[in-house]
């Protein structure tokens, strides 16, 4: 077996496969399917300081090679997470990150402060890229000054690893990436969903209650790969690649493009075992190409 370890800031992951926020619940939901400890880590669903009911139904539209969602950060709030969910996560020995979101900088900070107290949480993923909330979310991640402001504010109070999740809904993602790196991010994850829309022609109505939603799945992979490649070349901090990864080959493409780790997202809905199969597939690839370690392929795109 090849050495699959990789490093994000000061966290050593036993393999580069994480699962993406909003596609893996609190991990517990997958206990029936596989041993979650096999993962390099997982990212808990989007958490906000106050409980959120999320958007009205319908929240999902199937599209060609993908899906749109408009969940709108439904969650029980940071206190609920800390008191009701966190104790159940202590059984896991893998790295757990909490995706943190908010409508204002103060909300991001307040939420991160609560997560900061939770010893067993390895880090946060600051979500400045959710397209499905009216205030905050993506609005922070689409301009350099606002991205800088929210990342700097959370950096002041959050001591452990801070990953910042970037939005693809921008003209030049490298500008935002550099701004966020400058504001103190330890790592970047990209891409969040692309803003999209579905229409029911028969009914002459939008499919989603919110009209627009976030596109994920294999449909977005070429865009995600391009952005991961651009950002990896633009910053020094490690990049975590995601967007339409369905199998080990997809994951390897992201690693070659420069990602130090990957996140499996939408694939979890279709095959709950996708992430473990991807870990096995990466190992097979390294062996087949006679690489001893994962680091032999990260960013090693042959031009």
């Amino acid at each position, binding site marked *: 077996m090849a050495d699959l370890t990789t490093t994000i800031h000061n966290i050593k992951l036993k393999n580069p496969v994480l699962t993406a926020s909003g596609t893996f*619940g609190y991990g517990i939901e997958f206990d029936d*399917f596989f041993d979650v400890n096999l993962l390099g880590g997982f990212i808990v669903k989007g958490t906000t300081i106050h409980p959120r009911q999320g958007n009205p139904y319908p929240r999902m539209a199937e599209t060609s090679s993908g899906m749109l969602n408009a969940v709108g950060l439904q969650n029980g709030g940071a206190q609920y997470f800390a008191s009701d969910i966190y104790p159940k996560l202590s059984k896991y020995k893998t790295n757990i990150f909490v995706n943190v979101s908010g409508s204002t900088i103060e909300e991001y900070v307040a939420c991160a402060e609560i997560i900061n107290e939770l010893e067993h949480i390895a880090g946060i993923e600051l979500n400045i890229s959710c397209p499905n909330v009216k205030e905050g979310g993506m609005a922070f991640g689409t301009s350099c000054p606002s991205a800088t402001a929210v990342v700097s504010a959370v950096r002041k109070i959050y001591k452990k690893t801070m990953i910042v999740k970037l939005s693809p809904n921008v003209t030049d993602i490298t500008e935002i990436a550099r701004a966020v790196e400058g504001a103190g991010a330890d790592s970047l994850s990209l891409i969040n969903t692309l803003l999209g829309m579905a229409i029911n022609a028969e009914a002459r109505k939008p499919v989603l209650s919110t009209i627009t939603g976030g596109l994920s799945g294999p449909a977005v992979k070429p865009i995600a790969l391009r952005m991961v490649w651009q950002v990896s070349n633009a910053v020094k901090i490690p990049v975590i690649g995601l967007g339409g990864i369905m199998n080990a080959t997809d994951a390897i493409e992201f690693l070659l493009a420069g990602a130090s780790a990957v996140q499996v997202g939408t694939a979890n809905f279709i095959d709950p075992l996708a992430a473990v199969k991807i870990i096995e597939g990466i190992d097979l690839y390294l062996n087949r190409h006679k690489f001893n370690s994962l680091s032999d392929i990260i960013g090693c795109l042959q031009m």
Partner: protein
Amino acid sequence: MQMRKSVQNLKVIANFRLNDDHHLLQLKVQDQLEKVCPGQFANILVDHSQSIFLRRPFSIHSIDYKENTISILIKEIGEGTRSLSQTPVNDYLSVIFPLGNGFTIPSSKEKVLLVGGGCGVAPLLHLAQVLSSDLNDVSILLGARSVVDLVELDQYALFGKLYTTTENGSHGQKGFVTDHTLFLDELDQFNRIYCCGPEPMMKAVAARAKAKTVDCEVSLENTMACGFGVCLCCVTETIQGHKCVCTDGPVFNTKQLKWQI
């Protein structure tokens, strides 16, 4: 023991065409089946298709613990259901099951009414099977547009007193299920009503049940991406806020729902 959910490749051992648009798939389970509750569902991968990305959820229609098979009733609605209904015998389907919470099974003998409409009849066969084996007094009322849309009547008749309505009067009483004499005269004799079908039908049934203060459970169907509570797409409004149809349901007591009935 209650069966834990898993992803399994199940062999199609029979595929019966019941009428123009209904198929019955019988699937062989490799490992010994454990207890599946009536009302639980299976999420099935549609293969060989470019445009179908997500699994399709189906109620478990019936279960045979001796033969170790489950059956799925499929009505062709779109490309996904059409593709699945044409699965050849001996092919394998990737199935995640059993998912969700089933109907409440009474702890002592009760007089119960099962009301199904359209493809919503699917989970009621398994339910009738279990209720009748517990010696409950089971009545089953199935509604359809016309006689050609009523499937598997002989099967339902094995597990209770069977009544039907059709909109054109070609079988049973003419009209909707709520026009049936059971609803007009006898509803308050039942301890419990179970219902699955199109939402307007379920609301009409729930309203009648409420008026007679009879407990009513319905099985909901919302579009979902995962089927096991992580995508949070299939929510319905309940008195406790948004709940996932896949994991908090698909069966809900109508008292929990915010239906205007």
